[in-house]
C-alpha cells in the first residue's frame, strides 16, 4: 500500500483539471462589469486529471483509520456506527437541492424534518423548547449560555460567574468566557462527582447571587452519573442560578431518563455523537439545544413552528438574543438525526443506551485487574482508568495508546479528564460486538504483559506498523509549516 502520497501541489499543476467550456463572451453583453478591482492573477491552485484525482484521495483515505474499519473507543466522542441510511436520507434530491432562502412554501419538506427533530428532542429530554441552529457541541454551549445571559439581563440580574467542575470539557470554560463570564471551578469529590457540600456553601447567601449558572457534563467525564443531580439543581435554583447540562454524554441516558426531570434548564445534544451522524474527520456536527420553560422566550432564531397546517421559520421574537449562524443550522446532520430516531424508536434508543453502558462496564470488569481504576463504582457509557499500573511497569498512557495502534485499534481518549493522572477514557458505544471488546481487552493485556516482561523499549517506540511512526509535534509547533511551499 502507498503511504507516501505527494501533496496536491507536488503532484498536480496549474494546467491540469477539469474542462469548463465558456461558449459565450462578455463582449456579447457589453463587456465585463467587474469594476475597479478586476484583475487576472496567478492564484496558485493545483489541478489533477480525474484518474490522478481519484487515486490521490483514495490513497490518502487508506492512511486513515475510521469507525468503518476499526474499533474507535474515544471517550466522550461516542464513535458509534454511522448508519448508511442516514446518508441516503440526507442526500435525497429534494433535500440536497433546497435553497436556504427559498420561501417557506417551497421548502415544507425541510421544515417538516426540522420540526419533527425539535419535537423528538423535546420529548427525549422533557424540555419545552428546542433550537437546531448551533453547528456543534461547543456552539450549542454558547447558545445555552447566551440564552441564560439574555434571561438574566431581561430580569435585570447582572450575575458574573459560571461554575464548572474540574472534570469539565475544555469547551465549557472557553464558552463561558466568550459570553463575558468569569469562571470558577468546583472541586470533584473522591467518588469522581461534584462536591455538593462545597457547591452548597458556594451558592449560599449573598455570594450565591453572583452565580449565573453551573455547567455540568452528565454523565460526567469520569463516566459517572452525577447521583446528586437533583440536589445540584435545587441548590442552583434556590440561588436564582440556572443549570446547564453539557449533553455530550447523552448516549448513556437517551430513552431512559429525561434531563428536565432532574432540574436541567438547558442542554445541548451532539447529533454527531449520540444520534449517529458521522464525525467526518472533524465535522460538520450539529449541536441543537433544548430549554426549560424558564428560558424558552430567550432562545436564538431561527426555529420552526407548525401553524394552520404549514411549517414556518421564525426569524424574530421579542426576547430572543439573536442569530448565531448563517442559514438554518447544519441541515443534513439534522436529517440524519431524524433518520436514526425513526429507525430506533424510543425503545431502540433505550436499548442502545443500555448496551452502551453494558459494553463500558464489561470493559471495566475485564480490565480491572490490568489497569488502575480511580473510581470503582459502576460506570455509565465510558470507563476511566489512570496510569498508576502503567507507571509501575515503565510505560506511559501515550505509549499504551500508540501500541494499541499496532494492534489495529484506534486508541481511547488519553490525558483527559485532567483530574486523574495519565487518564485513559474508553467509550465503546453500543454498536460494538462482544467479540470486538474481547479482542481490544486482549490487546491491552498483551501490551501490559510485554512491558512487564521488560520489553518497554518496543512500546516506547510504538507504533511500528502504521502509515507513520510517532510524529515530531514539537518541530511542528516551533517551526510552523501550515501551507505547501511549491
Amino acid at each position, binding site marked *: 500500500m502507498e503511504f*507516501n502520497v505527494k*501533496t*496536491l501541489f507536488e503532484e498536480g499543476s496549474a494546467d491540469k*483539471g477539469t474542462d*469548463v*467550456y*465558456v461558449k*459565450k463572451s462578455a463582449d456579447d453583453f457589453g463587456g*465585463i*462589469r*467587474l*469594476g475597479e*478591482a478586476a484583475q*487576472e492573477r496567478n492564484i496558485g491552485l493545483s489541478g489533477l486529471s480525474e484518474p490522478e*484525482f481519484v487515486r490521490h*484521495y*483514495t490513497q490518502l*483515505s*487508506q492512511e*486513515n*483509520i*475510521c469507525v468503518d*474499519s476499526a474499533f474507535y473507543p474515544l471517550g466522550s466522542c461516542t464513535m458509534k*456506527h454511522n448508519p448508511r441510511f442516514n*446518508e441516503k436520507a440526507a442526500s435525497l*434530491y*429534494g*433535500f440536497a437541492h433546497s*435553497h436556504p432562502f427559498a420561501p417557506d412554501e*417551497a*421548502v415544507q419538506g425541510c421544515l417538516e424534518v426540522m420540526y419533527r427533530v425539535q419535537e423528538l428532542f423535546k420529548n427525549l429530554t422533557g424540555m419545552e423548547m428546542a433550537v437546531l441552529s448551533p*453547528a*456543534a457541541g461547543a456552539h450549542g454551549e454558547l447558545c445555552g449560555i447566551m440564552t441564560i445571559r439574555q434571561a438574566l439581563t431581561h430580569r435585570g440580574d447582572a450575575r458574573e460567574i459560571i461554575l464548572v467542575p474540574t472534570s469539565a470539557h475544555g*469547551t465549557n*470554560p*472557553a*464558552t463561558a*468566557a466568550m459570553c463575558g463570564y468569569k469562571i470558577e471551578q468546583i472541586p470533584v469529590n473522591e467518588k469522581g462527582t461534584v462536591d455538593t457540600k462545597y457547591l452548597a456553601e458556594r451558592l449560599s447567601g449573598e455570594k450565591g447571587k453572583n452565580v449565573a449558572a453551573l455547567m455540568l457534563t452528565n454523565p460526567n467525564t469520569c463516566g459517572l452519573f452525577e447521583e446528586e443531580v437533583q440536589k445540584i439543581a435545587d441548590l442552583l435554583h434556590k440561588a436564582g442560578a440556572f443549570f446547564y447540562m453539557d449533553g455530550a454524554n447523552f448516549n448513556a441516558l437517551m430513552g431512559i*431518563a429525561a434531563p428536565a426531570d432532574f432540574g436541567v434548564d438547558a442542554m445541548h445534544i451532539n447529533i454527531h455523537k449520540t444520534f449517529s451522524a458521522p*464525525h*467526518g*474527520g472533524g465535522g*460538520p456536527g450539529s449541536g441543537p439545544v433544548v430549554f426549560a420553560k424558564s428560558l424558552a422566550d430567550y432562545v436564538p432564531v431561527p426555529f420552526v413552528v407548525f401553524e394552520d397546517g404549514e411549517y414556518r421559520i421564525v426569524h424574530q421574537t421579542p426576547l430572543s438574543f439573536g*442569530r448565531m*449562524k*448563517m*442559514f*438554518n443550522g*447544519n441541515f443534513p446532520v439534522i436529517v440524519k438525526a431524524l433518520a436514526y430516531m*425513526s*429507525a430506533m*424508536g*424510543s425503545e431502540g434508543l433505550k436499548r442502545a443506551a*443500555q448496551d452502551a*453502558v453494558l459494553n463500558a462496564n464489561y470493559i471495566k470488569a475485564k480490565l480491572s485487574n490490568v489497569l488502575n481504576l480511580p473510581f470503582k463504582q*459502576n460506570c455509565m457509557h465510558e470507563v476511566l482508568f489512570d496510569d498508576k499500573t502503567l507507571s509501575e511497569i515503565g510505560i506511559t498512557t501515550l505509549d499504551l495508546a*500508540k501500541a494499541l495502534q499496532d494492534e489495529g485499534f484506534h486508541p481511547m481518549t488519553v490525558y483527559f479528564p485532567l483530574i486523574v493522572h495519565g487518564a485513559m477514557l474508553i467509550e465503546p458505544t453500543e*454498536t460494538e460486538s462482544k467479540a470486538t471488546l474481547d479482542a481490544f481487552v486482549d490487546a491491552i493485556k498483551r501490551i501490559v504483559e510485554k512491558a512487564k516482561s521488560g520489553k518497554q523499549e518496543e512500546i516506547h517506540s510504538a*507504533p511500528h506498523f502504521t502509515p507513520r*511512526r510517532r510524529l515530531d509535534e514539537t518541530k511542528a509547533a516551533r517551526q510552523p509549516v501550515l501551507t505547501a511551499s511549491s
Partner: protein
Amino acid sequence: MRYLPLSEKDKKEMLLEIGVGSVDDLFKSVPCKDNGTIKPFAASDEITLSKEFKEISENNIAAEDVPCFLGAGAYRHYFPAAAEYLLSRGEFLTSYTPYQPEISQGTLQIMFEYQTQVARLTGLDVANSSMYDSATAAFEAVAMACRITGKNKAVVSGGVHPDIASVIETCTQFSKIETVVSEHLKALTGEEEINPDADCACVVAQIPDFFGNIADLTDLAERCHKAGALFIVVFTEPLALALVKSLADMGADIAVGEGLGLAGNLNFGGSGLGLFACRKEYMRNMPGRLVGETVDADGKRGFVLTMATREQHIRREKATSNICTNSGLNAAAFSMHLAWLGEQGFKNLARLNHIKALEVASRLESVEGVKIVNHSFFNEFTVCLEGQSAKATVLRLVERGVLAGVPLSDFYGNAEEYLLVAVTEMNTDEDIDALVRGM
C-alpha cells in the same frame, strides 16, 4: 434492532462478568427513570423509512428542477461526481478529528492542502482547517482582531451580509466588544464611507458585497491601518476571488469566507464551511484547528494538528475560541472541488458565472420597470423593481415555478423594491428566458 450487535447470550455472559443481575442495576444512580415523561414512539424498518423520507423530501421545490436565481450567500454550483464518490468513503466520513496522527494522515494531509488553497485564494499567508460557516468565522475574526489590537470596537460595513453582521452583533453583545454596523442603503448605492477612529480594533467589509458590488477595498484598508485597526474582508462567493485583486493585495489582514457553494450541494444552507485566513504575524492568535508539516520517527514527512496551546482543550477559558468540532468533511469537499477544477478550471468557471450574470443583467435591463442597481458585480446583482414589491414578485413567480431571487425585504425594513438575483453555471438559457418572461 439492526444497529445493535449484542445478542441476549452475550448480554448474559457480560452481566456475569460484571457481577450484576441485570442491566437496570447499572443505572441505579440515575433518577427519574421510566416515569412517563418520554412518550413512546415506534421504530420503522429501512424499507418503510426509505419511502417516507423520499416523500418528505419531495415536499420541497428542488432548485435543480426549476429556474433558480437564489443566492444571497448560498450559490448553487455543480459538484463533481468523483468528489462526491470519494467523500462517501468511510475513511473520510467516519473518522474523528485527527488526534492520532499516525493513523490519520489522510485527513491531515487533505486539511494541509485545504489550508494552502485557502491561503492562496485569499493571497494571505496562513489559513486554519475550517470554522462552522462564514458568519461564525467573521465573529471569530472580530474577536481575534480585538485580542491583537487590545481595542474593543468593531465597525461592520453595511455591505456585509446581514446575517453575518447579525451573528457578529449577537456573539459580541455580551462581551467587551462594541459592534457598530453601518447603514445598508448607503452600501447598496455605493455611498458608504467608513472612517475608522483610533478606538477601532477592526473594520469588516465584504467583497463582492451583499448587493453584489465589487469595490477596490485598498483605500479602506489604508484608512483602517492608519487608525491602528485590522482590516477583515468577508466573501460569500469564493469563486469571485478568481477575477479580482487578491484580498491580501487590497490590504486584508484577516479574510473569512463561506465555502458552502463549492463544498457540495446547498442542503438547505447547511452545513456551512467557514474559510479563515490571515497574515503570518497573527497566526498564533487564530481560532480553530491548524495542521502543520513535520516528520515522523523515521524522518518521513507527515502532518499533525499543531499550535494546540491556542485551543480550548489545553487553554480552557483562556483559549482563542471555544470551537472544537469544525467543518472537516466540507473542507475536504471544498479542497477536492478546487483540485478537480485546477487553476484554469476555477478561472473558467468564474468567467462562465460572470458572463451568465452579464447576460441576465443585460436582458433584465431591457424590461420596463426593472433597473440594475450595481455598477459592478460578479454573479449576483441587485435589481430595483421601481415601485413594485420584490417579495410579491417572488411569490408570483414561485407559482409559475421560478425562484426569481431573494427580496431584500427578507433582511431589511426599508428595501421593498429590491431583489437580489444570482446567476451561476447551473442556470440554462431556458432558465434565463423564464426569468425574463416572468419579470
